[in-house]
């Protein structure tokens, strides 16, 4: 299988930089699966699960919102954070979820880019990744 290069940069660290056979990203309008030689595209990312496969190995991250640009054989994702399952503090995520939901309940209209809405989604993704992938 032809591989391509992936860079995942969080705001304060380089999360992944290397080859991949396949990557699944949480695109704004639905998941984006990328194989080598994908069409050039820039997409917004919503908080979600990111999976990367390379030589029978699979890596998983809980990703926050951000952007990905795919051009030629290079994929660069810039996100606020990307945590692997063992990096997530689930108690903190529960707290965040609670405070975000409280803030949201006081709002009448909420857009997709609302700070509290994103906060809720980020916490949900962290909890989901911990639940589904931590024991593997």
């Amino acid at each position, binding site marked *: 299988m032809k591989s391509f290069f992936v860079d995942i*940069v*969080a*705001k*304060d660290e*380089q999360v992944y930089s290397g080859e991949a056979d396949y990557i699944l990203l949480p695109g704004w309008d639905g998941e*984006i699966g990328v194989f080598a030689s994908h069409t050039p*595209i820039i997409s*917004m990312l919503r908080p979600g699960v990111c999976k990367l496969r390379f030589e029978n190995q699979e890596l998983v991250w809980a990703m926050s919102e951000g*952007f990905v640009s795919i051009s030629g054989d290079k994929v660069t994702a*810039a996100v606020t954070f990307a945590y692997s399952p063992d990096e997530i503090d689930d108690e903190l995520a529960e707290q965040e979820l609670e405070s975000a939901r409280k803030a949201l309940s006081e709002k009448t209209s909420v857009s997709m880019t609302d700070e509290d809405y994103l906060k809720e989604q980020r916490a949900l993704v962290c909890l989901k990744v911990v639940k589904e992938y931590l024991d593997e």
Partner: protein
Amino acid sequence: MGNLKEIKNRIASVLSICQITRAMKMIASSKISKAEALLKARIPYTKHLVSIMSEVSRQTSEVVHPLMSDEREHKKIGIFVVTSDKGLCGAYNMNVLKKAEELYYDCIESDCEPVLYLLGTKATLQYDRRKIPYRWGRQDWEADDDFADILYSMLVRDFLDGVFDILHIIYASAKSRASYVVVEKQLLPFEPEFDDEQDSSGNVIFEPSAEEAVNLIVPMTLKQIIITALLDARFAEYGSRIVAMTNATENAEQLVSDLRLKFFRARQEAITTEILEVSAAAAQLQESE
């Protein structure tokens, strides 16, 4: 003998100063590596955001995010000053405050209203002393994301409420470990930087749309600019402290060696006088016999 004791005391006090400055230098040296690493870790992310921002701006001619709108006349000028909490870092704070002052008086001269935001003990103390009111002041700050988020929310709220029409941030940006420059940047309304190196093919597909991307990328980039400025200022502060404390330690060492010389001379003088007195007395005794 009084003179000798005095010199001895001075040597002891200079030596203790020397110890302090050396310790300060060592603390700053150990912190600077961490500060540098934190700052450098931001670079790839920031670069990527800037390149996407350029692409968004290219594709959208008329998108105006509320934080980018520059329709109001610049009557109220926000000045955000970043200084350190602790001194002993040479002219670091002085240089930043001088620049802030220039901007402040420029504002007053051109009939605008300056709105001050002061970060760091050194800035708040200075303005308290001179009884110049400021809108917001904060001492004891950490250059981390939580704090940057707080700043971001406050500044955005004030901008949208019309507390200021334009906001400049003034901070020291490190050029290397040993040198820095004081920079002044416009923070709001937000003006995107352009990435000239990028090829402007313009054929990139945007998902879902460039218009929506603006809503997400503008706050992300702004927060990033704020945290980078804070980290940069901290890095420059440690660098400046290392330089200042190295000089202070060297000066103290020089002073100690000068004082030691003076001490030996004074001691020798005392001995010589004593010998003279003894031999004079002996000569007198011999004569009288």
